[in-house]
């Protein structure tokens, strides 16, 4: 048998480019969709919770209680609303008209004047974990400010933390979301495009004809992957522009390193698509499988939304076989922290191994299937 021939791989690639150019849908999908989605979701996804309706039950009515309420409203996160005394705030929580409630007991102001210890009760709607966690995060700051104002002076604490956020000083959640979002969309696109291309060749019947010619499976694979790799890379470039120009995401690290990470990740995703395509041989099924395997793990298990460290042990290990997890780590490290290859050795090594493994898997499946 003849070995790998670059010319034949090239002729497959050239034919594929003709298909792409004649199919405006694919072209638009590859170039327009990532930009659109990143812009759309970049604006939509914001971890900061603002404008929380706070039902206040003030049974004191004194100056200290008034000041406490002011503290909440001036934080910018809360919108205090007076509730009818009694079970008012709870009813408001039940019906969803408020997300949090504040109970100020009678004699609140008097006790503070007297220098005694007082408590105000803060009740939170726990049915929305993410929101709840964000709101709880705001409390210590308000409490500290309130202590200072209500007692007339800052309490002397024996010990306190001074917190400073590195890499993203304002904790701008878009800086964090947009690079991750880009990873998910690019991965999904790469999987979908290749999942469809080989399945189309089977459905069209042309695979049989191709295989009866001297062209080798590896040449078909390379010829298929190369144009889509280039197309996805063009998509990456547009997403990069949107992230930088529209969302002002900083880029602290090396562009070259980011490109290398992208190439590895794209290879893994393209190979995954190819594998799906080879197994299903049908565009419809390939599309569905590509959507599910391309979207769910990268959304939920890659550390995009939920930190990998807080997952159960099994899932922490399980996520290791997912390229998006490593790409997410590498992309955030490079863009926000300016990490170099030495610091990102593990994600890079993992990405390299996974993409090589995925490619080998697709090739082996492709070859054995034909025999």
């Amino acid at each position: 048998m003849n070995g790998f021939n670059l010319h034949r791989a090239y002729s497959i690639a050239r034919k594929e480019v003709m298909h792409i150019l004649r199919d405006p849908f694919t072209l638009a999908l590859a170039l327009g969709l990532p930009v659109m989605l990143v812009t759309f979701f970049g604006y939509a996804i914001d971890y900061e919770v603002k404008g929380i309706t706070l039902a206040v039950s003030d049974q004191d009515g004194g100056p200290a209680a008034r000041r406490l309420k002011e503290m909440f409203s001036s934080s910018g996160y809360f919108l205090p609303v007076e509730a009818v005394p009694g079970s008012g705030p709870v009813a408001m929580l039940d019906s969803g008209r408020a997300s949090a409630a504040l109970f100020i007991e009678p004699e609140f102001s008097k006790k503070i004047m007297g220098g005694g210890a007082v408590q105000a009760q803060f009740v939170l709607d726990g049915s929305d974990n993410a929101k709840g966690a964000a709101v709880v995060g705001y409390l210590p700051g308000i409490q500290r400010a309130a202590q200072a104002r209500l007692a007339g002076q800052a309490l002397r604490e024996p010990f306190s933390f001074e917190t400073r956020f590195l890499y993203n000083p304002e904790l701008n959640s878009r800086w964090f979301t947009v690079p991750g979002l880009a990873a998910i969309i690019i991965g999904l696109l790469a999987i979908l495009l290749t999942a469809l291309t080989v399945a189309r060749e089977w459905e069209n019947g042309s695979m049989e004809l191709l295989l009866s010619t001297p062209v080798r499976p590896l040449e078909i694979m390379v010829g298929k992957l190369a144009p889509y790799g280039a197309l996805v890379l063009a998509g990456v470039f547009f997403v990069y522009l949107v992230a930088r120009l529209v969302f002002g995401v900083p880029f602290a690290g090396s562009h070259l390193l980011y490109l290398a990470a992208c190439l590895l990740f794209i290879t893994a995703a393209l190979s995954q698509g190819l594998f799906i395509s080879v197994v299903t041989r049908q565009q419809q099924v390939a599309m569905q499988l590509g959507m599910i395997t391309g979207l769910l793990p990268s959304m939920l298990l890659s550390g995009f939304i939920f930190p990998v460290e807080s997952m159960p042990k099994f899932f922490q290990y399980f996520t290791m076989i997912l390229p998006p997890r490593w790409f997410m780590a590498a992309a955030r490290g490079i863009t926000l922290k300016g990490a170099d290859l030495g610091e990102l050795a593990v994600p890079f090594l993992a990405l390299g191994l996974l993409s090589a493994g995925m490619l080998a898997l697709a090739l082996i499946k492709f070859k054995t299937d034909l025999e």
Partner: protein
Amino acid sequence: MENFSIRTEELKKTFGRTTALQGVSFDLSAGLLHGLIGSNGAGKTTTMRLLAGLLKPTSGTISYFSGGRPAVFADLRPSLAYMPQQASLYPDLSVGEHLEFFRELYRLEPGVYARRSAELLEITRLAKFRERRAGQLSGGMYKKLGLMCALLQSPSVLLLDEPTNGVDPISRREFWELLYGLAAQKILIIVSTAYMDEAERCSRVHLLDSGRLLASGEPREVLKQTGAASFEEIFIKQGEGK
């Protein structure tokens, strides 16, 4: 040009629980136009795919010979052309682009390609449709384009799986004229068909029914041996005998 012949012995192919071929032995002697005749589901396509090396037999052997001496499939593969039964061209590529694509896959010299493609466009009378996309060709023209792609590399072995299926009678006749022209060049041609009238056009016929070989030989000899007036009659008798 090399002179290939193929012999199958007790060729068997099963897909899961279905048996497509249950032990078929025949000789495909060099330089002749062979017809694999049988109704739908007789095992014609499976036989073709086995001969083209796209499937591996479950049991039995396929032996290849070059100039009468044993050869391996790899010797024959570069000069084998196969035209599948189902639509297998790219609807969005034009006639000319198909030829270009196959030229690249076969790595033909520019001079050879220019001469060959001009010749093929001439005999298939598709020259004026060079720019037309495959998806917009009529059934007969589509089959001719498939044949052109297969013939571009001047094969020594040509496998055509139901090339005239679904083609109007006039185009069918034209297609056979093309095949006669090719047969005159003494290449090994194997054509499968479900049209019994086409059996008489072949120099050798191999009748397949439900994965079994009914008869094999020159068309007239086969008719004489079986005592039937036509090939249809052989198949009908076979059906009644079951």
